[in-house]
């Protein structure tokens, strides 16, 4: 008890800046009560002691309502006054500068500026956050043996899925390999159906018969187990689009490991020969299972592997980069200018599948660099403070509770 008292009083001294330590429990409590208000405080007092949000830009619109949007709840003890801001203080749209893409056989590439509206930002964030949570949950369920079979997780690569979907229409087609949970979600299947399918339940999108690698949706052709097998299929879908003249295209995804399969080059040849509206996207996550790309490929410039097909190399960790690049490629395809190869440089945080621990000595230093550039970082408050409603983000962000928090809280 005495130790605990000493510990607490030392902590209190450090917090309050006072030098004398508390000797008894009651002294401790008195000390604490001076720092933390245990009764409902008067509004102005608290506002001075708490952190305030940065000053919003001056209101330009005359119609902007100055009414605070906040709830000041003084009913419960230890309630806090919440500061207020109006939505008119936030801009609805902003333009970002994005990284330049490496080009191959192309004169000009995707735009280096990306426009983002508030709704889009929230939507992308929600998508990526949902995919991240879903994959982590699948990981947990697999370890509990509720999901069995094979499970290839996509966390770390969310920006690719979100960016691709943002750039194409729902009527366009998409086919990918076995790391497909995210694309299943972005193509319109609910998380519940995906998790049911993983668990082999009847409510799953493939009636529980497909499992992790075989989930399908309208205009989404899976989910393919055999490496590289989906690429000729994608070329075929693109041919159908061209034949039917419906202005649709096919996005065909594969990995850096699959880039060495012979059938890919057969598909490239056919697509280029017949100018198919096909976007071949290589999601280069640096490793094909445990083998790094340099040790498996004579050329790691996957965007140049199409040889006679133009290529773009994109930062796959930035959703806006991906979106702009895929938009550029989609416009190219719809204009009838034939196939295009893209390489999205990205990284996966798990091993190849649940059987692969993914923790190898030589992966960690490399992985740390990628983790710092994680795909969910782009909407942290430090970057886009005044452009999006932070609370909206907080309501999406699963690790923060919505509700009164000391200092700053904006409520919708």
């Amino acid at each position, binding site marked *: 008890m005495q130790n605990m008292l000493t510990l607490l009083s030392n902590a209190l001294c450090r917090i309050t800046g006072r030098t004398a330590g508390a000797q008894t429990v009651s002294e401790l409590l008195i000390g604490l009560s001076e720092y933390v208000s245990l009764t409902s405080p008067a509004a102005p007092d608290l506002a001075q002691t708490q952190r305030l949000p940065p000053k919003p830009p001056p209101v330009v619109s005359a119609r902007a309502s100055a009414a605070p949007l906040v709830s000041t709840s003084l009913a419960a003890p230890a309630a806090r006054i919440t500061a207020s801001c109006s939505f008119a203080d936030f801009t609805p749209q902003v333009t970002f500068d994005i990284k330049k893409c490496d080009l191959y056989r192309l004169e000009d590439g995707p735009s280096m500026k990306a426009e983002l509206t508030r709704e889009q930002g929230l939507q992308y964030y929600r998508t990526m956050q949902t995919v991240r949570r879903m994959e982590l949950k699948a990981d947990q369920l697999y*370890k*509990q*043996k*509720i999901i*069995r*079979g*094979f499970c290839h997780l996509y966390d770390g690569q969310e920006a690719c899925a979100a960016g691709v979907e943002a750039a194409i229409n729902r009527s366009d087609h998409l086919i990918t390999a076995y790391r497909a949970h995210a694309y299943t979600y972005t193509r319109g299947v609910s998380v519940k159906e995906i998790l049911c399918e993983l668990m*082999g339940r009847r409510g799953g999108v493939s009636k*529980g*018969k*497909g*499992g992790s*690698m*075989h989930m399908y949706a309208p205009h989404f052709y899976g989910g393919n*187990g*055999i*490496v*590289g097998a989906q690429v000729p299929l994608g070329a075929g879908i693109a041919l159908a689009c061209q034949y039917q003249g419906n202005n649709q295209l096919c996005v065909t995804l594969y990995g850096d*490991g*699959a880039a*060495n*399969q*012979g*059938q890919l080059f057969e598909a490239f040849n056919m697509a280029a020969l017949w100018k198919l509206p096909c976007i071949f996207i290589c999601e280069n996550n640096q490793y*094909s*299972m*445990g*083998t790094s790309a340099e*040790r*498996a*490929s004579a050329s790691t410039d996957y965007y140049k592997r199409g040889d006679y097909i133009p290529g773009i190399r994109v930062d796959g960790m930035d959703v806006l980069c991906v979106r702009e690049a895929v938009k550029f490629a989609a416009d190219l395809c719809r204009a009838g200018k034939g196939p295009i190869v893209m390489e999205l440089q990205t990284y996966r945080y798990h091993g190849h599948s649940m*059987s692969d621990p993914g923790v190898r000595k030589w992966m960690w230093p490399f992985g740390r660099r990628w983790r710092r550039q994680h795909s969910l970082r782009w909407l942290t408050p430090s970057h886009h403070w005044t452009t999006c409603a932070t609370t909206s983000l907080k309501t999406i962000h699963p690790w923060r509770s919505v509700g009164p928090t000391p200092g700053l809280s904006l409520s919708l």
Partner: protein
Amino acid sequence: MAAAARLFLRGIHSKCSVSGVSTVPRTSFGPRLLKLSPSCDPYTKAQRRHAAHFTFQPDLVPTQYGPTQKMNLFQSITSALDNTLSSDPTAVIFGEDVAFGGVFRCTVGLRDKYGKDRVFNTPLCEQGIVGFGIGVAVAGATAIAEIQFADYIYPAFDQIVNEAAKYRYRSGNLFDCGKLTIRAPWGCVGHGSLYHSQSPEAFFAHCPGIKVVVPRSPVQAKGLLLSCIADNNPCIFFEPKILYRAAVEQVPTEHYTITLSQAEVVEEGSDVTLIAWGTQVHVMKEVAQMAQEKLGVSCEVIDLRTILPWDVETVCKEECFLNLEAPISRVCGYDTPFPHIFEPFYIPDKWKCFEGIKKMINY
């Protein structure tokens, strides 16, 4: 008794699940956590998927091959490859991820011991791997190619059937790729679903020019693999992946071979003949025991071992078909792709085989 009925029961697939024999530690915290809630019992009969459908039955310790050591299946494969690399200076092992030991640990330590020019990784290209292996073998080196899962062998099907199998014939014995051996993990594993559970030996069973071999145990695996490597024809060696850890035996450490194209009568019997290969042999042994206890039927169990060319002599003696008292019966998986969630219903377990015997007896 010549008039005794002979029933051929051929089981192709074998169930596999992690049984108590397996030594892989798995966390059971999850299921325990679920158990805390009374309404959520993960071990109700309908959901139970963790019992093995077979029990590995080791053979007697072989004494004629020298000193033995306790090994499981993947260790016996490593031992065979180790023997080969040390005795044959031209031998090379290649495939996807073999350098660090392979996804099933079959090549652990070989790269460190023999060098990276003898044990090396290939990119992800099965057709390329087998084609490359044919070239290596034709040039005179012993090539041991690994296909990561038997399910992935199909891109290489053309190379195997059209190139490897026909090389000697079409060149008038000027060239051959007899030094090629292709190894692949094979068969169901309990959770493999469509693309990690297949048994494709039937696709190759009618291709003259190659040999197809499936062992049932570590002792058999090492001997048969060494025979395949030594054999003058391109061989495909399928290793039952469920047995990699589950099958433990005393395996001779020295080099030894087991004759190819020779089936083995694992258990003697007089009424019914049960033929199987791979993991299913262990299921059949149990079925034979059940038949003896419950039906009083004496079953003969034969392990085919080599699928192509198969031992016709042992399996059906001359004119045996004239003496059968019931038609030959096949017990195998259904005519669907290997399922994901329905695997326990799909595989020919001991009950299905037992049922087959009962029907046959009452024919």
